[in-house]
């Protein structure tokens, strides 16, 4: 499956008040293009920290589902985060990793995730549920299941490299933050 299709599948399943933290690079760009909503927080920089932002948020709003949409390069930059999440065992956190085994946003340089099984690292770190999917149908089914059950959950989706050219996130960073906070406050 393509990354764009995977993000679209996740976006289509989102309920109104589910919170999304999307990783910097193409993932945030595509999420913004596919389904721009106030409950999305688009990262622009701070590569690797999507799961950490998601964790801090999930602890702070325990009655809402927090879905982190991450990439393999991002996770590998902050692997320690998986152990922190596993230890804290936050029920409302779902960590999705779109794994194309490369730094696709910067030219496709290969990462180590062709060898390293990230979902097994997550499992060993204490995530309650971990899954690995490689088709859109499997991804949708897994998402439905994970949203309905307790986390922390880790979903690794193998995706193809590459994607269509897509514009940058159109909102100013401060706007992304302010409307996200407002959406949470208004819920």
């Amino acid at each position: 499956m393509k990354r764009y299709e995977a993000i679209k599948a996740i976006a289509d399943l989102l309920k109104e008040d589910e919170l999304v933290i999307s990783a910097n690079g193409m993932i945030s760009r595509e999420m913004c293009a596919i389904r721009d909503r106030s409950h999305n927080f688009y990262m622009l920089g701070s590569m690797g920290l999507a799961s950490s932002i998601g964790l801090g948020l999930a602890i702070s709003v325990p009655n809402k589902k927090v879905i982190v949409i991450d990439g393999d390069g991002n996770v590998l930059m902050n692997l320690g985060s998986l152990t922190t999440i596993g230890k804290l065992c936050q029920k409302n956190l779902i960590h999705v990793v779109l794994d194309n085994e490369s730094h696709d946003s910067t030219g496709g340089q290969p990462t180590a995730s062709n060898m390293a099984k990230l979902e097994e690292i997550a499992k060993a770190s204490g995530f309650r549920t971990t899954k690995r999917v490689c088709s859109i149908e499997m991804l949708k089914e897994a998402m439905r299941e994970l949203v309905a059950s307790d986390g922390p959950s880790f979903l690794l989706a193998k995706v193809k490299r590459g994607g269509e050219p897509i514009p940058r996130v159109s909102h100013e960073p401060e706007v992304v933050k302010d409307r996200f906070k407002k959406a949470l406050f208004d819920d």
Partner: protein
Amino acid sequence: MCAKNVFRIGRDINFGDSVIFKKFDWSLIWMKADEFCLLLKGYGFNFFAGVPCTILREIIGNLMSDRDVIYITATREEEAIGIATGAYLGGNKSVVLMQNSGIGNSIGALASLPLLYKVPMLLLISWRGYRGKDAPEHLIMGEAILRLLRSVGIPFQILSRERVEEEVSSAVRDMEKRQIPVALLLRRGVIK
């Protein structure tokens, strides 16, 4: 609690009705770690994430055993900044604790997350290598820390025994006004 009592406490000797000030005893006016945590809680800070340092040991110990606040042990300082940012998005007031060496680890994250998105947070930074007196691994960062903070535009207060309350108050005011991270630098021996 501290500075206001400077002239009222000390070890005195009594000679009848007159009191002779014998020796000024700093240990009597040092702010204790639990008082410092109370001070931060008084400003509404309720979410703490950090990487430990011996200078921060007592403070972290207090936060970890305090049921009114959350303390998360991060694996790296930038992770703590991510967690603190998420907590802010979720409505909490965050403090990140770290040694000054951790600013080296996290300066990119500071620049492209809380500084970029205008996320207020306090950075409680222990200052190892202050004035070149420390183990060798702390000397370069100890000398560079203020320049590093200035270079990315993070305001700071250097905490002193005599004026902790005023310095914290000033940092919090700055943080609220500008909606960015503001640092408190903690040297060894300032908090008991």
